[in-house]
């Protein structure tokens, strides 16, 4: 059984014990343990259930590639699902829960799926749950969702903090094993700024587990010296617990640093997302061992050979006392030897090759271990743990030659370089026949802004699997990186690394070679997603020949481990089924991040109130103190209405409207865009930007203007004021100011660069207040300082002066139909001006109003609103605004487009007003008008409602709509179905409901 053994465990501190819980059960481990090693040390091999068949699973790896041992870690607001137990460092009080099972890990009803697995082949869901359509929503999906899935989503907001960190270096080295350290040494010694990342807590990589001699001494001596030298260099930074997550264009890299996950009581940010700019990246990311595909290769206790060795050597734990080793290469013999030397039993080594004659097999035999060549595993016996292995000939069909009782299996199918970071940005791979793996093709790297390769691989990540080669390769990589960023690297000899030589690997993609369907359907390729050899074969048989299609059909490599263990084996099976070669099948695309990173790290500090800062007007404080009901408008917050005690929101809006139309209302219009356009050619320029003629506007006058895109569609509107001969103030919508300013600059800089014009977005430099209503003039006159009489300042006039001692620009414009002044004052005076208006206006019944009253009043007047009456497909003519489109101008943006046949069709959707038959019924926003039937026999839509309100002024519902050929439908009654058997009928009317002659505003 799995247990803590007496020897080994160089990473743990046996003198101390720490407590943790697993599914509520109290267990102990040692400092330095991972959660997986502590569980193995506590006799717990079963750590989870698989995704589809709920098969019992134990850890298959010991590192970040782990597909099986996924757990929920932490509790409450610190809970996080799907964490790999193999990389979670143990700390006192760690709470872990296994997942994807019910009612318990040990006894799971979902495992019935496994018994039915014959009926759940690849593409099962696609094939089965096709019809009827409604059944998907109500029956299939809920049931499948309940049964499937990994960990549970957290139920509370994340209580931890996260942050970004920025770094700029010459050379980034990813991986702190032998190769990464040597590459960093070379680049650091040459003088380059180096950042070295190691995803685990320990530098050294496989040197910690495997016996390697460097310069004639045990590797520990070299390792200590290398780390000391790097730490002593001012130009080198080392970060452990930090993964190189993704490589992006032009040397941009994301790093994922886990700062506090290994601590019991931590302060400060939990994770840090590093955004690194570097000229060269050295990927010393090592290699990952591949499983072998034999029946029962997923039974808890079957592990990768090197992972098993790691558990014994690094943590002093073993999944079993009797371990059968099965391999196609020499490296796995190291596991057998390590187990034997630790006093554990290795009943047999099954070597699929025809001969095992290298020094490692010899050493194993010398230790008295039985070695069987040309043999493989027919099947692993056992359910929740390994009980025995049935041996067969690798060349045969799986006839059992012998059954060997055991409680663990160490498997090795060879090693694949970790090529992810190389491939993220387009580095190409080449199939290495001798080593049976894809490795980076150094002649086709990802290229930077100079066209030079910016990723260099080092060590086994290059495919240099033997220590001696890896050291030479790493030294060369570090030197090359340094030289390419302008430093002079050493030319001396690199250290000599030596390990036992190895005989070549022999590819084994299926064990045994002629495995029956029964065996193939229990031979797992993708452990987490339960994809078996038989599934990939079925996909090929059904025509999914492209690797990307086969992947999606079978879900091979689509689990949270992204196929780190399964990809090559799956490709090989696919290639074999298609009768082609592995390089011809190719790989799927490698995408960042290398392993999952937390959502918190991606968000960083951008959450809550600072996720997206709210823009506030200079008068915001008053609104906030006076019960504003807020409405987001673009990036701003604006008062929707000011609700008084005892009022509903609607009642508040109606009160504000009635008061404005009777007395005087105030609107904070500061959010309106204000763009200053100035220069000798300003008028000429605005003639091109607006559909109207702006050059004919006299200084001191205002004009409502429209802007179209080059496609002829209306996108913004507002009042243009000619401040003087050469300067204009262009008002835009609240949401449009930045866009319109950028639009003007784009045309000025890229098309009409000969025009002498400057633009400046002064939106936030001015507060703007609309003083609206029959008593508006009286109120302004009480402030004193400017003549605001009809004679001095007529409708659509502009004057500059002082009001109550505050510098003011006064525009006599109206968006409500009432006598109205919009007054711009410097932003810093905004609140004082507002307060003054309230104080002086108290006797006149002054009352602020919000955006909803503004909307209703403009609708009563038939004024359009960008975004309500426009949607990017509407022309000025569609809105009966043809009067604002100049016929005299030679050119303006959109003019050519407005001449296209489709833009002048008589039956385009056109703006109409609607009066419902029942005046109390308000049409729903967006309701569709229907008439007749379409080609499918369904009611045909002829248009939709764009604005709809109850008008307190008209004491009835009013609406605007865009209706096919609406201009010719005056008086027609339209039908708006608004639910089952419910139809609202409304008459097409003039959209101007109130004061059609416009007398109220021009007084």
């Amino acid at each position, binding site marked *: 059984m799995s247990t803590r053994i007496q020897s080994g465990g160089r990473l743990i501190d046996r003198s101390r014990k720490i407590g943790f819980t697993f599914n509520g059960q109290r267990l102990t481990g040692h400092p330095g343990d991972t959660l997986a090693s502590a569980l193995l040390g506590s006799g717990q091999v079963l750590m989870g259930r698989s995704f589809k068949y709920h098969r019992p699973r134990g850890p298959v790896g010991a590192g970040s590639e782990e597909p099986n041992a996924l757990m929920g870690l932490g509790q409450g607001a610190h809970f996080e699902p799907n964490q790999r137990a193999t990389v979670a460092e143990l700390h006192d009080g760690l709470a872990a829960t296994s997942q994807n099972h019910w009612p318990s890990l040990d006894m799971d009803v979902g495992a019935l799926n496994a018994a039915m697995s014959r009926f759940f082949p690849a593409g099962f869901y696609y094939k089965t749950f096709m019809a009827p359509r409604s059944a998907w929503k109500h029956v299939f999906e809920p049931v499948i969702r309940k049964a499937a899935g990994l960990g549970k989503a957290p139920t509370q907001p994340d209580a931890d903090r996260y942050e970004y960190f920025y770094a700029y270096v010459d050379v980034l080295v990813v991986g702190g094993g032998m190769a990464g350290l040597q590459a960093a040494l070379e680049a650091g010694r040459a003088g380059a700024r180096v950042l070295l990342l190691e995803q685990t807590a320990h530098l050294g990589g496989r040197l910690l587990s495997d016996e390697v001699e460097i310069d004639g001494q045990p590797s520990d001596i070299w390792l200590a010296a290398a780390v000391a030298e790097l730490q002593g260099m001012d130009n080198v930074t080392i970060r452990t617990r930090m993964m190189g997550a993704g490589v*992006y*264009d*032009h*040397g*941009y890299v994301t790093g994922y640093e886990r700062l506090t996950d290994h601590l019991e009581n931590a302060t400060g940010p939990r994770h840090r997302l590093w955004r690194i*700019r570097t000229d060269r990246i050295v990927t010393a990311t090592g290699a990952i061992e591949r499983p072998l595909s034999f029946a029962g290769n997923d039974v808890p206790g079957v592990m990768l050979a090197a992972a098993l060795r790691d558990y014994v050597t690094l943590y002093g734990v073993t999944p079993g006392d009797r371990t059968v080793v099965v391999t196609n290469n020499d490296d796995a013999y190291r596991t057998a030897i390590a187990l034997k030397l630790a006093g554990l039993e290795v009943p047999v080594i099954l070597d699929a090759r025809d001969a095992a004659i290298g020094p490692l097999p010899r050493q194993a035999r010398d230790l008295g271990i039985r070695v069987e060549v040309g043999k493989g595993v027919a099947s692993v016996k056992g359910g929740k743990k390994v009980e025995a292995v049935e041996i067969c000939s690798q060349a045969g069909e799986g006839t059992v030659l012998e059954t060997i009782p055991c409680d663990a299996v160490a498997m090795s199918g060879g090693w694949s370089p970790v090529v992810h970071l190389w491939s993220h940005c387009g580095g190409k791979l080449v199939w290495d026949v001798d080593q049976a793996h894809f490795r980076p093709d150094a002649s086709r790297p990802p*290229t*930077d*802004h*100079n*066209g030079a390769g910016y990723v260099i691989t080092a060590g086994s990540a290059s495919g240099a699997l033997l220590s001696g080669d890896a050291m030479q390769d790493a030294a060369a990589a570090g030197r090359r990186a340094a030289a390419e960023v302008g430093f002079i690297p050493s030319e001396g000899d690199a250290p000599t690394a030596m390990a036992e030589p190895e005989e070549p690997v022999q590819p084994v993609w299926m064990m045994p070679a002629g495995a029956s369907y029964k065996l193939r359907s229990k031979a797992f390729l993708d452990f987490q997603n339960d994809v078996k050899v038989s599934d990939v074969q079925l996909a090929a048989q059904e025509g999914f020949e492209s690797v990307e299609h086969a992947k999606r059909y079978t879900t091979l490599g689509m689990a949270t481990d992204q196929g780190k263990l399964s990809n090559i084996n799956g490709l090989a099976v696919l290639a074999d089924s298609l009768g082609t070669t592995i390089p011809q099948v190719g790989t799927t695309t490698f995408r960042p991040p290398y392993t999952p990173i937390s959502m918190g790290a991606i968000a960083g500090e951008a959450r809550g109130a600072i996720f997206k800062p709210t823009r506030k007007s200079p008068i915001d404080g008053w609104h906030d103190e006076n019960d504003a009901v807020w409405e987001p408008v673009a990036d701003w917050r604006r008062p929707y209405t000011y609700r008084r005690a005892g009022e509903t929101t609607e009642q508040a809006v109606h009160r504000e409207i009635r008061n404005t139309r009777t007395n005087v209302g105030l609107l904070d219009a500061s959010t309106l865009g204000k763009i200053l356009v100035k220069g000798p050619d300003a008028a000429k320029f605005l003639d091109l930007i607006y559909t109207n003629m702006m050059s004919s506007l006299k200084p001191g006058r205002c004009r409502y203007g429209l802007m179209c895109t*080059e*496609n002829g569609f209306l996108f913004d509107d507002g009042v243009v004021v000619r401040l003087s001969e050469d300067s204009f103030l262009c008002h835009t919508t609240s949401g449009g100011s930045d866009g319109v300013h*950028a639009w003007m*600059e*784009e045309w000025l*800089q*890229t*098309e009409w*660069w000969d025009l002498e014009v400057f633009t400046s977005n002064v939106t936030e430099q001015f507060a703007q207040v609309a003083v609206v209503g029959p008593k508006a003039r009286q109120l302004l006159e009480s402030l004193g300082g400017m003549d605001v009489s009809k004679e001095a300042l007529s409708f659509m006039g502009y004057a500059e002066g002082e009001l109550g001692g505050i510098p003011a620009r006064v525009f006599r414009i109206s968006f409500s139909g009432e006598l109205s002044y919009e007054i711009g004052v410097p932003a810093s005076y905004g609140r004082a001006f507002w307060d003054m208006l309230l104080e002086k206006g108290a006797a006149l019944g002054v009352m602020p109003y919000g955006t909803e009253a503004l909307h209703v009043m403009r609708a009563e007047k038939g004024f359009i609103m960008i975004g309500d009456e426009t949607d990017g497909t509407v022309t000025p003519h569609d809105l009966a605004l043809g009067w604002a489109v100049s016929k005299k101008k*030679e*050119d303006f943006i959109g*003019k*050519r*487009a407005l*001449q*296209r046949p489709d833009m002048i069709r008589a039956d385009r959707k056109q703006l109409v007003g609607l009066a419902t038959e029942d005046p109390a019924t308000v049409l729903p926003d967006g309701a569709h008008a229907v008439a007749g039937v379409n080609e499918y026999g369904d009611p045909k839509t002829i248009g939709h409602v764009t604005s709809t309100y109850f008008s307190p002024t008209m004491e009835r519902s009013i609406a605007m709509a865009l209706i096919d050929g609406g201009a010719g439908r005056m008086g027609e009654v339209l039908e708006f179905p608004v639910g089952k058997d419910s139809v609202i009928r409304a008459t097409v009317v003039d959209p101007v409901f109130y004061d059609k002659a416009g007398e109220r505003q021009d007084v």
Partner: protein
Amino acid sequence: MLRLTCPVCGATGEETEFHAGGEAHLKRFGPGSTDEDFRDYLFQRQNPRGVHFERWRHQYGCGKWFHVARCTQTLEVFGSYTAQTSTVPDHIQSAIKARRPDWEPAQ
């Protein structure tokens, strides 16, 4: 994430500091143009695999538009230059030729 240099203010920055504006050197067709010319001006783009001329704006910097000559396949940047030109300047053409001897400017 691309690294670009603004030729107006001289700053080199991250792609996120800039705003991409599509193909450069489009000729504007306005009133009086044929339907075909106007259609092509609005909608037809070269989208080449290889040398491409693009408009970029230094959105979070000096705010100026400029042009970039870039390889869409290798992401190599041959140079950035003023937006106030309707042709590719000689020094940019030379820089492209130096790296892509077979490249010919479009007519």
